[in-house]
């Protein structure tokens, strides 16, 4: 019953908020009630999976070889909880007038639909079903991208849709080939069935699936849609997209490579994993170089998503249990930090009137509390001790050094330094330097109306701080989650 909640609670919320589209007040109450219910259910779920239990359901009680099932283990439960948290923060932020997401009647239904797709992707235990939830996510994301219907948005949405449809199609072809090879789609069955497949076809099919998922997660060289589409979104939606959507792709790669096909890292003496590792290194570099080059706050942060995805992929490519654990820790840390940065960026832009760093400034003097809210996720993104990013990067680096992957570790360190440069650029330009004389400060922004936005940023900031100063809880959870992969959690 509880295992159904990640799908049913946001889905039903999406439906009832769609029915209330013409009554904004009712819709808002329903939307928040649904979001809180999702958060509560996800917390209960997290508590249950933390005992080591895997919550399973088979829809319609069909046997596993014909039916579709959900199986929520520690990894799935953790990701569902983070999803619910991000949904709540987004909706809270959208209550303010910062970068107003154009109070569109279908905003709330689409956000909840998106959350349903994301959460169900984390809950599902079936490869084809995973594809279905990717489709739901894509449809809702495309809807959110075009809300408002300005030309620039349509341009970004078209690029997003074209490349993501290609990714989804590749995924579908890959799923069909897996079925052709093994006759199985359920994760539990694939785990044993893949043992009997020859290395060549297995690598080809895995390569196809991972390629599709790399495209979805914005990895090198297939990330061009991301910086094109994301900056056209209003701040709260941008935070939701940036935090969650690419990470679903990374999660699916982790699930596939570390859990469903445990042979993957050893295929062809590790060539498969090595290729993934170099893609990860290239992703980190390409992302951070893009971030160093740009001056638009949203573009810089969008390129940072790409570079951070590289760290997660690197951790997955290491192929060890500690690597998987580092990937899980990194993903959770990164979702919270990234979303928060975009939320704060929205507030910065509303204070200075522009996302362009060259035309902004003086935030530190005018709104010191905003600088504090920015500092927590920013320092964490760079990986300054003791913030959560430091622990995340340390886990990845420690494991890559332990496995003798010195080149990857060197790239990761270099990228950290470059990240510091581009974050320092934001700090110097937007916060430290005075507002350029020819730019007028935006006096229209009213601090009272911004309270919900500040609360959302503070909430995520507190989550980051609690991971920063008490990393042990999350590290232990991630370790246990990683140990339970490869069928280790079978009961």
């Amino acid at each position, binding site marked *: *019953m509880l295992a*159904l909640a990640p799908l*049913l609670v946001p*889905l*039903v919320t999406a*439906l*009832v908020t*769609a*029915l209330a*589209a013409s009554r904004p007040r009712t819709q808002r109450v329903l939307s928040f009630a649904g979001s809180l219910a999702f958060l509560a259910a996800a917390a209960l779920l997290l508590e249950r999976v933390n005992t080591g239990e895997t919550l399973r*359901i*088979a*829809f*319609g*009680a069909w046997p596993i070889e014909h039916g579709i099932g959900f199986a929520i283990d520690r990894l799935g439960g953790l990701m569902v909880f983070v999803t619910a948290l991000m949904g709540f923060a987004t909706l809270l932020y959208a209550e303010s007038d910062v970068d107003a997401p154009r109070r569109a009647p279908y905003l709330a239904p689409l956000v909840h639909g998106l959350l349903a797709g994301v959460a169900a992707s984390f809950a599902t235990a079936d490869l084809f079903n995973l594809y279905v939830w990717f489709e739901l996510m894509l449809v809702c994301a495309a809807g959110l991208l075009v809300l408002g219907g300005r030309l620039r948005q349509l341009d970004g949405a078209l690029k997003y849709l074209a490349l993501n449809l290609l990714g989804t199609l590749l995924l579908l072809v890959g799923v069909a080939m897996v079925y052709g090879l093994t006759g199985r789609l359920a994760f539990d069955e694939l785990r044993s069935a893949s043992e009997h497949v020859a290395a060549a076809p297995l690598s080809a099919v895995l390569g196809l699936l991972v390629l599709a998922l790399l495209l979805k997660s914005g990895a090198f060289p297939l990330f061009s849609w991301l910086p094109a589409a994301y900056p056209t979104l209003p701040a709260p939606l941008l935070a939701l997209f940036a935090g969650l959507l690419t990470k679903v792709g990374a999660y699916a790669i982790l699930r596939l490579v570390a859990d469903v096909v445990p042979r993957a890292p050893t295929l062809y003496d590790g060539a498969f994993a090595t290729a993934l590792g170099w893609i990860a290194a290239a992703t980190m570099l390409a992302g951070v170089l893009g971030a160093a080059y740009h001056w638009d706050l949203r573009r810089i942060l969008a390129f940072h998503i790409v570079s951070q995805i590289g760290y997660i992929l690197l951790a997955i490519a290491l192929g060890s249990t500690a690597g998987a654990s580092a990937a899980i820790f990194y993903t959770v840390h990164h979702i919270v930090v990234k979303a928060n940065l975009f939320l704060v960026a929205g507030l910065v832009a509303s204070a200075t009137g522009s996302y362009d760093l060259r035309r902004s400034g003086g935030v530190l003097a005018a709104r010191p509390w905003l600088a504090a809210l920015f500092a927590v996720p920013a320092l964490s993104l760079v990986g300054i001790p003791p913030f959560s990013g430091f622990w995340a990067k340390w886990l990845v680096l420690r494991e890559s050094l332990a496995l003798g992957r010195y080149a990857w570790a060197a790239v990761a360190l270099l990228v950290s330094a470059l990240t510091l440069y581009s974050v320092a650029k934001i700090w110097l330009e937007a916060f430290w330097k005075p507002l350029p004389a020819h730019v007028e400060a935006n006096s229209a922004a009213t601090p009272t109306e911004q309270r919900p936005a500040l609360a959302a940023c503070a909430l995520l900031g507190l989550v980051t701080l609690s991971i920063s100063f008490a990393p042990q809880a999350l590290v232990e959870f991630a370790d246990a989650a990683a140990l339970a992969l490869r069928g280790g959690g079978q009961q």
Partner: protein
Amino acid sequence: MKFAGDVLLRNVCSRVYVLALIVSVWILLRGHNEPGGGFIGGLVAAAASIALAMAFGAELAARRFPFRAPVRCGVLGVLITVASGVPALWRGEAYLTHPWSKLELGVFSLDLSSVLLFDLGVYLCVWGALGGLALELLELDASEDQA
């Protein structure tokens, strides 16, 4: 709408509308054990709405949807589908397990199941979503004609 007002078209379409809806319900019901079902039935129903819109305008066709709006029709369809799996939970079975029973009506018997409820939801969802989408596109066309 350039067709609106055409007597022949109106006469044909209003009859085709009724006929197509009857056919769509028949397809929905036979889908139990034979080819058909909610999805195909919904497609036929959407085609019926499109025919009506071609003759009488999209606005009137939209009002003729169940629950008087395509979006509401589609959304309530999904809600019915979601709800059809809930009784199984009370019976302690897995979600979406559908109980079956046979209703004897003398000459013939009818298989009854909450699957029909599920299919009805799919039918309404497809009708609302695809029909609504088509009507929006027809309206786009109409506004371009006026411009």
